[in-house]
């Protein structure tokens, strides 16, 4: 059976590096991107089960990623993480049909569980 594919988009290298290492431990295949443009381009070539994206990024931001993914790849789950957690952002994302929303610093175990739940639901 093919491994599940996770995409991580965050403009800070450390987030992608740490996420990649932890999620690979769970047996997932992980690709990381420092911004959304190449990430969205990649989505055209390859299907991903889950996209974990930062909320606030320069250029294409997390909400736009969310909208694009929901429109083009409805089977792909989106999880949002953000350093600027506030109620408005959360509501906005939830309305956009995000699967889960985590303020940073994100407890890795909780992220893993959220991904697991998303994959089971799919």
């Amino acid at each position: 059976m093919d491994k599940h594919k996770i995409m991580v988009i965050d403009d800070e290298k450390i987030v992608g590096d740490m996420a990649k290492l932890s999620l690979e431990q769970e047996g997932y295949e992980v690709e990381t991107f420092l911004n959304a443009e190449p990430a969205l381009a990649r989505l055209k070539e390859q299907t991903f089960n889950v996209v974990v994206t930062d909320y606030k990024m320069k250029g294409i931001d997390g909400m736009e990623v969310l909208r694009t993914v929901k429109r083009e790849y409805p089977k792909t789950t989106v999880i949002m993480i953000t350093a600027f957690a506030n109620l408005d952002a959360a509501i906005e994302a939830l309305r956009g049909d995000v699967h889960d929303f985590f303020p940073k610093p994100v407890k890795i175990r909780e992220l893993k569980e959220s991904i697991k739940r998303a994959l089971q639901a799919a």
Partner: protein
Amino acid sequence: MKQAANNIQAFLSSLLRRIVPRRAEEGPAEFRAVFEQFKEVLASNNHALETITDMGEKLGGEYLFDIVYVINAHGRLKSDMEASLLAFDGLTQRRYPSLRHVFGHIDGLISGALAEAPDGIIRPVLFLEDIPWGAEREVGGKIAHLAELRNQLHLRVPDAFVLTTAAFDAFMKSNGLDRYRAQIRQDSPPQNELLRELRERILTGTIPPAISSELQRALKRIVGPRGKAFLAVRSSAPDEDGAHSFAGQFRTVLNVPPDVKAVEQAYREVLASLYYEKAISYQTQTGYDIGAMKMAVGCMIMAEAAASGVLYSTAPDGERDIMTISAVWGLGEAVVEGRTEADLYVVRKAKAPLLISTVPGAKKSMIIADAEGGVKELDTPEGLRDKPCLTSEQAAALAGLAMTIERYFGVPQDMEWSLDAAGTFTILQARPLGVGTHDDNAASANGAVPSDDATSFYPVIIRDRGTVVQRGAGAGMVFIARTPEDIKAVPRGAILVAPNDSSLMVTAMTSVSAIITERGTVTSHMAALCRELKVPTIVNLTKATELLEQGQVITLVAGEDDRSMIYRGAFRELLAQAARDGQRMENVYEFRRKRYLLRYISPLHLVDPLMDEFTPERCRTLHDILRFMHEKSVAELVLRARGSGSRMSRQAAVVRLELPVPAGLVVMDLGGGLSRQGTERKVTFDQIASIPFKALVRGMIHPGAWQAEAVAMMAQDFISSMMRMPDITAATDSTAGYNVAVISRDYMNMSIRFGYHYNMIDCFCSENARNNHIYFRFAGGATDLTKRSRRLELIAKILKEYGFNIKIKGDLLIARLAGLDRAAMETVLDQTGRLIAYARQLDAALHDDRAIDRYAHAFLNGTYEL
């Protein structure tokens, strides 16, 4: 006779001053203000410590974090620290101005670590004496350590200067080599062809003229009056986390003549070695980003070496009591590169280090400096082969140096040394010894609790009890430590089990596999240390010392959410898995880089406030500064309470405490210490509301503890006591009010004098264990000197059983116990109260040394008859 009386009076006064030094006298209102300031310092300290704990947790590897978190947390921490410093300055009346400077310096280092580029311009060439503490990123670990040995410890190290990472930057830029580095960062793994080309370009590159002229000046300065000197040109890489030593990875060029061209060539060779192919395998193993690394290069005067070698300040198998020294004739390269059989010396560590064995080596060859430059290997002359390189005095002296260094850095050291013809030692290098802190006996960071069926062979003794401070797994023999002496005796690889947590445990932390305490919190000093050193730790596991047996082999697995298991036996598979899981996050370079700033925040170096090294200058981290402030605040409180006491008693702003025993105590209530109606001038035991004071007094009035009749003094005791009789006709100001207690609900400070000895107890006993302390001073005695010191020994013996840290100076005893929770504290106070009562008349009874044990034993068993 009058003269004698005056002398006695003077003697008594000086004795009093030593135990209770006088301060400008303050009344009750002033002392209340002081007490409030004290609580303010505690409050902002606690805030700061909580932020430190939070940072330790979020940066521990279990959270995805980014720079925004780090910047915000640092901001919070900085304002907490500033609030603390302000309150502290107020309380101590600005007695420690250097503390602010130290804070500024450390905070600057943190900001530097946060920023991508360091603040300010660093000079391309720096001499050791000009290198400030904390400059590893500019001068590399090797040179930074050497600078510390020279500048802080004033040890003999070679004269040296360093071409800093600024020089590296300038060299790379002016030769257009930055694109190679960028390419290396992108390719994974970097291509050998690319590396080869880069090395070529470095070896043939031009040194920028500005650097060249700095180098010229430096050479002139270092050769100086010597006339002739040769240099060792060595790499000094900024090992960002100190965990990896790059041992043997990069080039060293020895015996370089002090001319610019030769040194520049050596410099290029060392720089090029950063890009050796073996660097790649190192990179993959340890996650270093070779393309991002910079290299500093040290130029050190070649020490004239009659003999040289290596020293491990702890035996390679971890035995902490002994150290091993290898020695050869000539240069130490012969040892470091394993080229000849060296002498081996084993020295026992002690105040006076003792050589316990010498195993002479064959020493067939030796390496010496060639007069023209470079080094050569030749056969050791016949006469020298069988001769030991070091005499036993020399081995002991070298061991003494090593112990100083080990004590300073707090971890075992791997040192290179040389000895000149005049018999003086020079330390060439000192770095942390990679003693398997966590080898196959322990593993850190990710103790995953396995499923039940996997553990059928290993019975579970304890499950999910206590609070996990640091995850991980460890196995070993249980060692129960109740006193500071016990902590020092913990064998390597043991699992340390103790009733209370204590920052004194830091001395054992690099040796043990895991720590379990019956009490404690995740925010204590000890907890911060366990997290920093990644020692698997569980606190608050009640009755651990009863559930586990001394010497029993167990495996501890501490997991997430306070899940934990303790198995009987050594469950090796579990440890191996945890080790594998734990290592990985450390290999993420960016993670290590961000964590780097914790090194200026969390580690604790100021451990024992009774030691003389408790000064602002010894603070290396924010944690140290907090610790310093706490201890000095307590000291300040004690001092000021004393001053207030005598004035208050003269002003009659106190009430008498009526007790079943004639303690003669008067009490001053700061607030919440007494519950009484109106303004009566007398209170009884039941009206005491102060928690610590009540517990202490309860002990003092414990049936039997207070001996009603004085023990019959023998004839010579009587004469001794006569000689020390105070002149009762003198004005009684200085001796009046000696039995005064200043109290509040959580606090007490009591000075109490019986006959010729003085006790002073200061205690803060609140809901927050971290804030709590007991400080106890005892001095004097009626009889001759021997019996007086026996009494001190007796008191010390008993107090140690309760976990006190003791210091004795002449006939003054100081005892300290901190970090206990309220309930534990009340028990100790009760016992201390009984001890104060008990010890009153013991003087004359301690006829010989055996009596000490007898009476200590009796006391600890609750028997108080004499």
